C-alpha cells in the first residue's frame, strides 16, 4: 500500500512538474510577440 502511494505521488509530481515546465516556458513565451508589439 505504501509503495502504491509512493508510486502514485511520483506520477502526480512528474505531471505537476511537467505542467509547470510547459506553463512557465511555452506559456510565457507566447506573450513575447504581444509584449514586443505593445512596446
Amino acid at each position, binding site marked *: 500500500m505504501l509503495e502504491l502511494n509512493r508510486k502514485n505521488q511520483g506520477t502526480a509530481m512528474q505531471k505537476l*512538474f511537467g505542467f509547470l515546465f510547459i506553463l512557465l516556458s511555452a506559456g510565457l*513565451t*507566447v506573450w513575447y510577440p504581444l509584449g514586443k508589439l505593445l512596446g
Partner: protein
Amino acid sequence: MSNAKRYNPFDPKKKSTFTSTRGNFLYLFLAPLFLSVILALLARNIEAFVLNGIAFGLFFATAKLNTIGLKNEHAYHTTLLTKAPKTPFKFIAGVMLGLSTLYTAWIAGGETPLTGLFLGAISTTGYFLYYGFDPKVDKLDNVGDISAEFVIQTLAESRAKLASIENDMSLISDRELRGKLQVAIDKAYEILSNIEEDPKDLRVARKFIIVYIDGIKKVTKSYTELPQEEIKAETKERLSHLLSDVEQRFDKEILRLKKNNQFDLDVHIDVLQEQIKN
C-alpha cells in the same frame, strides 16, 4: 471462481496517464499569439504580422499533433488487440513544442537565441513529463498461429461493415424490423468482442464473419434503396423471419465460441493432469 481481475493502476501496458483526449491545454497558448497577429495587422506592421502568424501556425500545428497523439493513445488503451501507433505523434508534438517556443521567443519575440533554446528545451522536457511518450509495444497477446495483422484487419473490416449497417438502419421506418436488426447487430458485436479476446476463435467464426455480416449488409442496403411504399407487406414479413433466423444463428455462434473456450480449458486441464501423473 470470480471473474474479477486484480486491480493494478500502475501496469504500464494497460494504464496510461492520458486515456482520453482531454487535457490538451496547448490550444490556450494560441490566444495571445492570435491577439498579436491581429494587433500587428491593425498597426500595419507587415514584418510582425508574418512572424507572429508563423508562431501561431507552429503552436497550432503542435496542439493539433498533440490531439492526434492523444487520440491514438486512447484508441490503443481501449482496444484489446492492436498494434502500437506507427507514427509517434506525441513525440513529434513534444519536439514541435520546443521548436515553436524557440522560434516564438527568439525570432518573433526578439529574445536572445540562448533564451529561446533554454525555453524550448524546458517546454519539450515539460511536455514529455506531462504527456509521456507514445505506446511502443504491440498488444498482440494470445494470437496463436493466426497472423495478428489478419485478425486486426478482419475485426476492423467487420466493425466497419456493422457500422455501415447501423447507418443504413436509420433509414428503415418499420420499428419492428429496426429493433430486430439492432438485436442482430448487438450480437454480432458480441461475437467480434469474443474473437478479440481469443483470436484463435477466428478460425471457428470465419463463416460468420464472411457470410452473415456481408449478407445482412446486402439485405439492409437493398431494403433501404427501395422506396418504403413500394415494399410489400409480404417482403417485410420475410425479412422479419430472416432476422429472427439470423438472431438464432448468432446465438448459436456465441454458444459455439463459449464451448470452444470450454474445450480449450478441458485440454489445458487434461495436459496438466498428464504432467502431474508423470
